[in-house]
């Protein structure tokens, strides 16, 4: 690691991460040559359809890939420390401690037969030797930070006794317990009402800015990313196909897939067009490919209107603007500034 660099040391730097699964249908590359980094206090949005490898990327970052899956290449550096290849003992001291994760559905992730206090206290005791009283106190203050009133009552509750929004706040509180360097949130607001979703997004943003915690927010919803993220990576079939600042990716999308995603979100249709009417919602033709039989070269070429025979080779990343990268032979022309 180049510690002499004048730039701030990123919280997490991922390079050429590749994760494969051996299955009966053959070897599946779920995460393919993925690189990105997140700085302290920064929010990275990771966008893609289901099956695009977003969640597998998250599990790879936590060392939670189990056989038949395996990280076969690349590096994961947390504050400069290489995590890939760490023994399980050391991984355990990272998980939930330096890198915390929030899952999509807190109904499924909070253990239904254990009380909230048990599940919070064990998360502290897994990493710190403190008394149960001190752990409970920490749990109470974490619940307070995510805006839960009457934390004592909630601590004694079972997950099913809480509302969906409340459960997700608990999950966020658990993620905050050990003041991690990085939080990975895997579609944590998808199951919630829009109004609660907005509240939670705002709170997460504030919490991370204040504490300098880096945040990776995984979602299929570009509208969420627009309001939350500093930078965005768009994933398709295990690869990051476009990567840049939120402004670059959402307003100057260079990859035809990103463009297609933007055109198919209701937000795009709601934006007033020239004639004052809503734009027509557009659909990306075809289906997302199964990772088991990807086309050679660019995985998107069979659905892409701009594809040519050149796309049968894998395109390298190119950079239409500083900090903006796209994996395409025929990127969309950039509108002049």
């Amino acid at each position, binding site marked *: 690691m180049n510690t002499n660099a004048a730039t701030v040391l990123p919280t997490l730097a991922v390079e050429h991460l590749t994760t494969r699964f051996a299955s009966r249908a053959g070897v599946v590359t779920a995460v393919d040559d993925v690189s990105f980094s997140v700085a302290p206090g920064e929010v990275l949005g990771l966008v893609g359809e289901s099956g695009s490898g977003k969640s597998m990327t998250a599990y790879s970052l936590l060392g939670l890939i189990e056989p038949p899956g395996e990280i076969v290449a690349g590096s994961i550096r947390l504050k400069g420390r290489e995590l890939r290849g760490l023994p399980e003992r050391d991984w355990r001291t990272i998980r939930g401690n330096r890198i915390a994760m929030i899952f999509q559905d807190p109904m499924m992730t909070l253990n239904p037969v254990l009380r909230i206090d048990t599940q919070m206290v064990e998360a502290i005791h897994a990493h710190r030797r403190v008394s149960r009283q001190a752990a409970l106190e920490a749990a109470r203050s974490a619940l307070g930070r995510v805006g839960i009133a009457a934390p004592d009552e909630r601590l004694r509750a079972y997950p099913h006794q809480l509302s969906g929004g409340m459960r997700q706040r608990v999950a966020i509180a658990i993620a905050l317990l050990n003041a991690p360097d990085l939080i990975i949130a895997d579609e944590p607001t998808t199951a919630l009402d829009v109004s609660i979703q907005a509240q939670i997004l705002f709170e997460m943003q504030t919490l991370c800015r204040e504490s300098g915690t880096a945040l990776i927010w995984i979602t299929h919803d570009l509208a969420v990313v627009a309001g939350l993220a500093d930078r965005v990576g768009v994933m398709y079939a295990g690869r990051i196909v476009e990567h840049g600042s939120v402004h670059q990716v959402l307003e100057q999308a260079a990859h035809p897939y990103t463009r297609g995603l933007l055109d198919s979100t209701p937000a795009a249709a709601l934006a007033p067009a020239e004639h004052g009417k809503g734009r027509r919602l557009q659909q990306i033709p075809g*289906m997302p*490919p199964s990772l*088991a*039989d990807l086309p050679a070269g660019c995985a998107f070429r069979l659905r892409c209107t701009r594809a040519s025979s050149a796309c049968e080779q894998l395109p390298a990343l190119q950079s239409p603007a500083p900090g903006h990268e796209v994996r395409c032979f025929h990127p969309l022309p950039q509108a002049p500034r």
Partner: protein
Amino acid sequence: MSAPADDRLPLGVGPFARLVAAFADSRLALAGLALLLTIALAAAFAPWLAPQNPYDLMQLDILDSRLAPGSPSGDGRLTYHLGTDAQGRDMLSAILYGLRISVVVGVSATVLALLLGMALGLVAGYFGGRFDTLLMRIVDIQLAFPSILTAMILLALFGQGIDKIVIALVASQWAYYARTTRSTAMVEGRKEYIEAARLLGLSTARIVFRHLLPNCLPPLIVVAALQVAAAIALEATLSFLGLGLPVTEPSLGLLIANGFQYLYSGRYWISVFPGVALLLTILAINLVADQLRDVLNPRLQKQ
């Protein structure tokens, strides 16, 4: 995207061929099936396969009693590969005949219980109402009660005999089929194709037997397959306890019971070999039934 598993089978293959292919996926199940077929053939052709008729007293020689496996008979005409019992009966022949009785009792009890349970379950599931409530109450009570007790009590009332033990087995097992049929019939009965058949004005009998019944069969086949093994084991247990079949119709259970007292003197073969035959029969059925359950279970199929 078609799942790769489907690609191996050519298009136009019927559901039955698909099931056969899925069944053959497990080598253990195939071995079980082969064993089961062997046992079924041995039971069917016992009179032709057995070296002697073990119940023709003319063929027995009391001087040959309790011979160890491999001993020659007194007159030197045959070898007792599995030894002889207290009457000088060839154990191999006795086991083949006993197997025949065990299998006949187990299978006929299962078929009768299946028919009875299916009929009651179909009526309850399709029509519902008070009959359904009453039937399910009875089924619940019956299933909460161990089958061995039900059978023992009935045999205590009726006495011994093949017909009586079949009745006792049917009485202690029909409830499984009734419950399975009823729950499937209720689920299937609410589906569109039944509604469509009703709208077409088909007769109730036709709807129930031609449309509803075939769709209720897969889970019933699985239950029946498992219950054949249970019926054979239960019959053997009852006969062992002296409640099942009379001495004139010795099933495997009775053969084992007859050898019990000789165990203490080290003459293991009189009990052990019929027991092995019983074990192999039940094991073969269980292996086949286990795989059938996996193949016919729609929940597992979709994965």
